[in-house]
């Protein structure tokens, strides 16, 4: 529909410079420049390397997104940007760009939450989010179960990891196995040829008295590393495929078990999974199986929309416009620990009308 909001979204919370363009719930462009190769030899994302790469990549990536979308900047209804959570210095590059772009074009600015964006992106794949939505977010930086009755105003955390994020555990085990960085895709690949039942690795926080929706992957990581070290100490070959499959099974077993339980407990009949780990093939398969058995409808966006990208930020920005949420102010900060309960960062004053103070009008109106 032509009257749906046309929004450009900017994402720089980690190592991807993402710029997306959406119209309402329709994806028009998803341009991403990744610095992941520059981090590989360090075995993890180096914040300063990521920030430098964002500065270099931003203008070309905005250009590319607009061309891909076939729209002109002056036709945008708003600019949205990840205000947090994420790496402070990296976030600040995106926030600076978004503010300058919105100001220069005379458009409203929406500083939005990275986690809420991961949920909202599913609108581009499967249409408007059911209300409420149960979401399992799993990536290198986060692992949480969230319940949202309105993605622009109400996101309630049910549980989260108490130590490592799920994706972090994949990276660490890949390192123990000398498989390189990032660990998720390579472990997924080896696991396909391994036996998930070969080794009984522990399922963290699944005891009867443990918190129902929290996660812990630190104990699992240590158990896997010890198991591997014992084989090496004994001079035995490490069965990389079986270790990968058994480790991965332990992670996705806990994730899907708790997510399905949360849906049942809250009476929610569908589950969305987002974040980089949602690209894991075993997680998708097991979630599908368990959701079907429980009568729950599963919504998982395509892998490219699960990893960090600008389209997800644009999707949430478009929802902010559609629901008339207050825009952010020009002094919007990057907040590395923005709480998940804040889907966006509205401006503090009501007098601010997001047009130029001098002209009191849109630059292009």
């Amino acid at each position: 529909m032509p009257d749906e909001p046309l929004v450009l979204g900017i994402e720089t919370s980690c190592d991807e410079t993402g710029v997306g363009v959406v119209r309402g719930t329709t994806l028009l462009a998803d341009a991403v420049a990744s610095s992941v190769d520059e981090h590989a030899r360090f075995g993890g994302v180096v914040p300063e390397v990521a920030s430098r790469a964002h500065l270099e990549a931003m203008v070309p990536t905005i250009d590319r997104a607009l061309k891909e979308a076939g729209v002109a900047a002056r036709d945008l209804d708003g600019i949205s940007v990840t205000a947090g959570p994420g790496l402070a210095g990296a976030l600040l590059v995106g926030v600076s760009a978004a503010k300058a772009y919105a100001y220069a074009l005379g458009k409203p600015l929406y500083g939005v939450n990275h986690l809420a964006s991961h949920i909202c992106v599913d609108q581009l794949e499967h249409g408007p989010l059911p209300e409420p939505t149960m979401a399992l977010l799993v990536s290198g930086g986060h692992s949480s179960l969230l319940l949202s009755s309105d993605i622009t105003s109400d996101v309630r955390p049910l549980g989260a990891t108490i130590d490592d994020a799920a994706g972090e555990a994949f990276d660490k085990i890949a390192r123990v196995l000398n498989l390189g960085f990032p660990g998720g895709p390579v472990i997924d690949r080896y696991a396909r040829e391994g036996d998930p039942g070969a080794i009984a690795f522990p399922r963290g926080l699944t005891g009867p008295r443990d918190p129902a929706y929290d996660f812990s992957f630190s104990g699992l990581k240590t158990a896997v590393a010890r198991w591997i070290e014992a084989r090496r100490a004994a001079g035995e070959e490490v069965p990389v495929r079986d270790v990968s499959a058994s480790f991965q099974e332990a992670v996705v077993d806990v994730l899907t078990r708790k997510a399905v339980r949360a849906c049942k407990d809250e009476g929610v009949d569908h589950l969305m999974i987002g974040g980089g780990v949602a690209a894991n093939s075993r997680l998708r398969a097991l979630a599908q199986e368990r959701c079907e058995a429980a009568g729950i409808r599963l919504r998982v966006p395509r892998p490219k929309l699960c990893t960090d990208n600008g389209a997800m930020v644009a999707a949430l920005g478009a929802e902010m416009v559609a629901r008339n949420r207050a825009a952010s102010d020009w002094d919007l900060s990057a907040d590395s620990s923005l709480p998940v309960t804040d889907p966006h960062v509205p401006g503090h004053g009501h007098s601010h009308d997001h047009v130029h103070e001098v002209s009191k009008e849109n630059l292009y109106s």
Partner: protein
Amino acid sequence: MLLLALDTATPAVTVALHDGTDVIASSSQVDARRHGELLLPAVDRVLAEAGLRLDAVTGIVAGTGPGPYTGLRVGLMTADTFGLALGVPVYGVCTLDGLALAADLEEPFVVATDARRKEVYWARYADSRTRLTDPAVDRPADIAGQVAGVPAVGAGALLYPDTFPRAHGPEHGSAAALARLAAERLAAGEELPAPRPLYLRRPDAQVPKNYKVVTPK
């Protein structure tokens, strides 16, 4: 000509407008931790003071540092994105050159800003418009011989009186001075480079040797 200049490479967030003849409005706020929050409102204020809109600007001038990276990038990213949105050129001018012009000296001197970690960003000048050395980052004691006997300006010089006994103001970067420099050079037909950040240090990152064994000994 209407130039909008920004510099966030020192603790000051500075903005200035130059109409080709002179600086017509400017703002400078010293707060090393809030560059991201302060810059856009400062641009808005400076434009309001001049009674102009951003789309009247014909070029953007950005201080390229050297300076602490996080703050430096706020100005450079803002300048680049303004350039993209307005379709005007973005020029880079070394932040130390702005300080040198603001110092208004006709004799040889040194500009030194605070690089943190007990180091300074610095360069030598023959006079306020002539830089003699590439910007560098060093420990003050290591460059004492190269900066001896001449006046020094900038917060880095004021911080280390043993190395810079003749230190005085100005302390921080100045967008007004950058705008003047850029206007002079453009009027003289010079080409100004696109802004490239002067980081002068590699990112702090170490290639891990091996993972830490977890089995207790």
